[in-house]
Structures are given as C-alpha cells and as structure tokens.
C-alpha cells in the first residue's frame, strides 16, 4: 500500500502544498535566470534596470518565502502522519491553513508583479527583506503576514496529531521524524514573533497611513531576529531528510537516533540569539551585543558538524550493506543512479562548502570585507539555494510517487537533473564568492560603475561574469527538467505499473531508548531557548525602544 492509500487526507494536503511550491520554484527560478544574465551584462532584454528590482523581489519572495514554506508544510504533514501512523487530525483545518497561505501568496505576488505595469498604482519593490523606510503596498505586508499565520496553524495541526498519538501510546518516545518537526516548529514560533511584530505592529499600520513614521533600526532588528532562525527553518527539513530518508536510500539505517535528537534540540536553543550577525555593520548597535551574537553563531556550527558526521557515517553503513569496501571504495557502492539519493547527497556536499563560507560571514571583523557583496548570495545559494532546494527536489522524486500513487515519469531526465544543478551551482557560486571578494555589490542591476575599478583577488572579472551567466542558465535548465518530471508524474495514469518506491523507513542502529527521556521534554528546551533570547535581545531591544518606539522616525518612501 502506498502512502496515498493509507493517508488519503494528508496526501491531498501534501499534493496541494507541493503543487504551489513547484510553481513558485519555477517562476522564481526564471527570475533568477533573468538576474544572472542581466547583472553580468550578457543579456539585458528582459527588463529595464529599474525593473530589475521588481524581478529580484519576486525571486527572493517566491523562493525563500513561498517555495520553502509550502514545501516544508507539505513535507512536515507527511513526516508527522507517516511517523505517528495517523492521518491529519482535521482536513477542514488543513484546508484552512492552506487557503490562508495561498491567499497570502496571491496578495504578495500581486503587489510585486504589479510593479511591472506602470499604469497600475501598486508596487512592492522592497526585496524580500523589506527594509523600512522603503515602503510597499499594504497588501504585500498583509500577504506576508497571512503566509506566516497559516504556517502557525499548520504547526498546530502537527502538535494536535502528536497529542492524539500520545493518548493512545502513553509512555512511548516521540517518533524521530515527529520530534524533528516539533523542534523545528517550536523554533519557528519563537522566531516568527519578531517578524510578526514588525509587520503587524509597525509596517501594516504605517503602509495604511495610520502611523506616519517608523524607526528603521527597530524594524530591521525585528526582521533579523527572525532572519537567522528562518534559515534553520529551511535547513532543518533538509536535515530531516538527510537523517531519516538518506540512510535508507543508501541501503542502510540511521547511525544514531539520540544524536539526531540532540542536534535538533541544539538548533532550537541556538538559532535565534544570533540575529545580530546580520547587523555586524549596523550603526546604533553596541559592539558587545554583536560579540555575543558572534560567539553564539560559532557554537551553532556544532549541530551542523555533528550532522555531517552522522550523515556520512550512515551512508557508509548503507554502502557497506550494499557490499562496498575499502577506505573510500564504499563511495562507489552508493546508488548514484537514484536521483533521490544523488540529489540529497550532492546537496549535503554543497552544504559543507556553504558551511565554510558561512564561517567567514560569521567572523565579525572579516565580515567587513564581504558584507553586502556578491559573496553573500554566493554563500546562500549553497545553503537554502542548494542544501534546501536540491534536497527538496530530490526527495520529491521519492515522495511524489507516494502521495500520488503514480510511477515517476521521465526517469532519464530525473537522473541527470541533480548533477546538472550541482555543476551549474558550482560555476555560479564560486564566481559569486570571488566577485564578492573583489568588492562587487549584491542586489545591483548594473554592477559597472564609471568611478570604480573592481580587481579580482582570484581570477578576472570577465571570467567571473561568464561563469555566473552560464551557471545560472544551467541551473534554470536543471529546474525545467525537474518540473517536467513532476508534471509528467502528476499527469500520469494511476495504476500503470507497480510503484517502485518503498516508503518504509527502518529504525536507527542506536534507537531512542539510548537517550535520556528529558530530550523529549520540549517544554524545558523552549524555556532555555527563551532565556537565551532574553539575554541576547533584552538589553539591545530595551536600548532601541528607550527613545520611543517610533523614534528616530522615518516617513515612507514608496518603492
């Protein structure tokens, strides 16, 4: 029996979520292609340089807000129902959060895309960070708020399912995948409060003209209170896949369930009190608070380092089960011809590279050199743009057949897609990193200035531009292959042939009984997490609001 037969309600929701997320991925990726060609001056025929920022806002919002949130909502619905062995508690509630998120997406997308049509007096060219006092149309902020509130309700349904399971299984350990979902969602609740306050208390009233000014530093700080944990909201689902599905795809089992739990608890504790590392170069924030954020950030490396170990160890175990031998020879015994495996594994590999450039970003004083340069998008296309996005695509090859009951179509295309992504990203990202070291700014339609001469530290400017353009094009082609496979599978007839995937996930080599029970007591971890946040954010927030919530205040600059 496939997942779709056992969990019919959940399957509907997961399909709907994945559907929206794939559309967002396709459109967002097309905008990415435009950017890669426009910035590098290879082709500037799609949009004017003034409209470049409309494209860039669309790219950021569609990919990191819409694609991610919908995909995660679907993945978590699968992960909780499948590991608790209970279908969603209420389909009505399910459609409620889905509809909220969809309406939110439609509102935000309308505001952004209207920016292309001069005759419509509506725009939201504020990029996905929407720093005040640049001001978007109110429906942009309202849409963003709806997406977040919808995700809160989705989270509530995961908990509701867990509570129901608890009643029927008193004293049992929370299944690993549900544990991961729960810790991720708790972190999400704690962190989205920041952006919710920013948007609901400040930006929506301000864009409606109810208040005349906002303090740009306070709204920015609230954004970044949310802005770092959000990257873990993207990564933790990828980790969920790497911990629980990747070992199985490799032919083995997860190495250690207890360590996986510890890693997720560490993320819950440490993801939020680090946001000032995005504000290292902000005036108005005392150096001491930046230093605290820096140390917390460095410790946040620990759970990722542990993950690297466990994931590689689990893959090695799987490879040896397949008959692999030798110190590195086992690598050859992994199923590199299974796109669900190869995509997740390549995503993990790129994430390691992204981790290294992230360590540079986190180094407070080195940050001067790369802040707001092209280095930064070079970095996060490895993390959210590959670790998350490529894992999402890869796992779709495994999951979409299960939620539709249809065989994966166009397997040949699926086979090359992850490799093409990996290759395209290698070109684009390495060149972005190096261009950033030469000082080329990000978020810029035409990074060619009469008065400025960028000189590459490694390599020449022309070579970097070409690599970005070619890399971006290959990425877009890879994206198209993915979408063709998905569309083909979706529209295929059901029942033609046996499902080739098997959705059973084997238990870990070292099971949950080897970890202390306190690990499952998430109330304790939430209390500690909030304590750490009060230490990191209490005093600076107090300083910022001491001179007035709206002071020093800026009027609006519509964009």
């Amino acid at each position, binding site marked *: 029996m496939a997942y779709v037969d056992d969990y019919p309600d959940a399957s509907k929701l997961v399909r709907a979520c994945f559907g929206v997320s794939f559309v967002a991925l396709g459109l967002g990726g097309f905008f990415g292609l435009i950017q890669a060609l426009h910035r590098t001056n290879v082709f500037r025929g799609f949009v004017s340089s003034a409209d470049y920022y409309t494209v860039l806002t669309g790219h950021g919002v569609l990919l990191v807000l819409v694609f991610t949130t919908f995909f995660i909502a679907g993945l978590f619905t699968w992960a909780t129902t499948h590991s608790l062995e209970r279908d969603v508690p209420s389909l009505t509630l399910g459609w409620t959060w889905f509809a909220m998120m969809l309406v939110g997406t439609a509102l935000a997308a309308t505001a952004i895309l209207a920016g292309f049509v001069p005759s419509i007096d509506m725009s939201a060219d504020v990029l996905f960070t929407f720093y005040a*006092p640049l001001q978007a149309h109110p429906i942009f902020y309202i849409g963003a708020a709806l997406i977040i509130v919808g995700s809160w309700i989705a989270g509530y349904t995961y908990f509701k399912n867990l509570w129901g399971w608890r009643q029927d299984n008193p004293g049992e350990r929370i299944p690993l995948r549900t544990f991961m979902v729960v810790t991720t969602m708790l972190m999400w609740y704690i962190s989205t409060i920041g952006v919710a306050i920013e948007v609901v208390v400040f930006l929506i009233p301000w864009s409606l003209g109810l208040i005349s000014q906002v303090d740009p530093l306070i709204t920015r700080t609230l954004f970044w209170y949310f802005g770092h944990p959000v990257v873990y909201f993207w990564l933790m689902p990828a980790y969920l896949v790497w911990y629980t599905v990747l070992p199985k795809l490799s032919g083995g089992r997860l190495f250690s369930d207890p360590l996986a739990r510890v890693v997720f608890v560490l993320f819950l504790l440490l993801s939020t009190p680090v946001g000032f590392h995005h504000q290292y170069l902000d005036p108005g924030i005392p150096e001491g608070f930046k230093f605290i954020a820096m140390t917390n950030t460095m410790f946040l490396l*620990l759970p990722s380092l542990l993950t690297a170990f466990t994931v590689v160890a689990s893959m090695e175990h799987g490879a040896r089960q397949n008959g692999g031998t030798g110190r590195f020879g086992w690598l050859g015994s992994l199923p590199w011809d299974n796109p669900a495996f190869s995509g997740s594994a390549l995503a993990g590999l790129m994430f390691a590279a992204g981790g290294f450039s992230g360590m540079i970003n986190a180094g407070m*004083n080195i940050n001067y050199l790369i802040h707001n340069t092209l280095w930064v998008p070079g970095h996060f296309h490895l993390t959210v743009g590959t670790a998350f996005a490529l894992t999402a695509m890869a796992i779709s090859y495994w999951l979409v057949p299960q939620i539709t009951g249809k065989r994966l179509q166009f397997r040949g295309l699926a086979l090359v897609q992850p490799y093409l992504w990996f290759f395209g990203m290698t070109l684009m990202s390495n060149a972005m990193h190096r261009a950033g070291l030469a000082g080329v700014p990000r978020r810029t339609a035409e990074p060619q200035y009469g*008065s400025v001469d960028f000189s590459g530290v490694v390599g020449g400017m022309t070579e970097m531009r070409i690599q970005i353009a070619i890399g971006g094009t290959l990425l877009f082609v890879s994206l198209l292959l993915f979408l063709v496979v998905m569309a083909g599978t979706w529209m295929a007839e059901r029942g033609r042939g046996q499902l080739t995937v098997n959705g059973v996930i084997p238990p870990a080599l070292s099971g949950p009984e080897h*970890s202390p029970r306190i690990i499952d007591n998430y109330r304790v971890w939430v209390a500690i997490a909030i304590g750490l946040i009060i230490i990191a954010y209490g005093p600076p927030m107090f300083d910022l609001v001491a001179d007035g919530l709206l002071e020093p205040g*800026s009027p609006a*600059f519509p964009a």
Partner: protein
Amino acid sequence: MEIHRFEKLWLAAGILLIVGFIATVTYGAVGEGVAMVNDDGGTIDPTKVSEDANFSDPGVEQVGPHEYEAHIVAQQFLFKPGTSTPIRVPANSTVTFYVTSSDVVHGFNIVGTNVNTMVIPGQVAKMKVRFEEPREYGIVCNEYCGAGHHTMAGTIEVVPEDDYEGGA
C-alpha cells in the same frame, strides 16, 4: 547515551574549531583593534539632516595634526560629497567618517577595503580609517535603495600630503 569513539573525536575537534574561531575574532578585535561600527555615532532626526550642524554642509575638516573628520550624507542616489565631487583627504592621515542618510537605508563601501557600513536613517555610522598612500578609491552604495541604486557611487582621492588644499 552511547557515543561512538570516532564521533567523540569529531565532537572534540569541532569544539576546538569553534573555540579557535572565537579566539581569532577576539584577537582581531582586541589585538589588531578592528572595531565594529558601533552606537557611538549617535542618532539624528532623518527628516532634518540638512539642518543639522554637522551635516548641513557635509565634507572633510581638519581636526588635528594628520587628523580629519568627514561628514557624508547618503541619499537616493548619491553621496554628498563623493558623487559629484570626490571626497579628498591627504595621505598619512586618520579620517573619522560620519555617514548618515536623509531618506532610505544605503550602504557605504570603499571598494576593495574593509571600510564598509550600513547607513540607516536616524543613525550616524562612525568609522576611523587610516590612509597611508596617495591613490584613488571607488565608493559604492551596497544596499538596495530604490530604482536608481545601481547608479549610486563615488570616489575618494587620497592626495599627497603636500598637495592637500582641504577636502571637498
């Protein structure tokens, strides 16, 4: 809870790496004196920048032997001074930059150096920079500030000490 021996080694190496990073950054801050942009530039009413005593006529001013102060206003889509007239400072000098915005968020980056700050309305960014040799530097706004953002750039001319006749 049982932890594999290799995993313990890896964990120890990871913690060592983290402590090493923190030590390096701390050395950079304390030993090498790389100060972060701070709150000591103070605040300002962003709607009244042109009436402010320091920013109404922004530019470079000598405040001591080899010591200068440069007040700069960032606005859509130019630096004042910097864009239509270069910022001019002598070689072998220490310049304290004070940068603020009269409209939206901007960036101020002397290309290829670690002189880089956000420019946030309501806040004054303060940075001390040493200029040793005569040469010209480009400045770019590296934070999106509106439809003309990609045109926002400027120059700093570091002139030989003897030729210096005051800033822009």
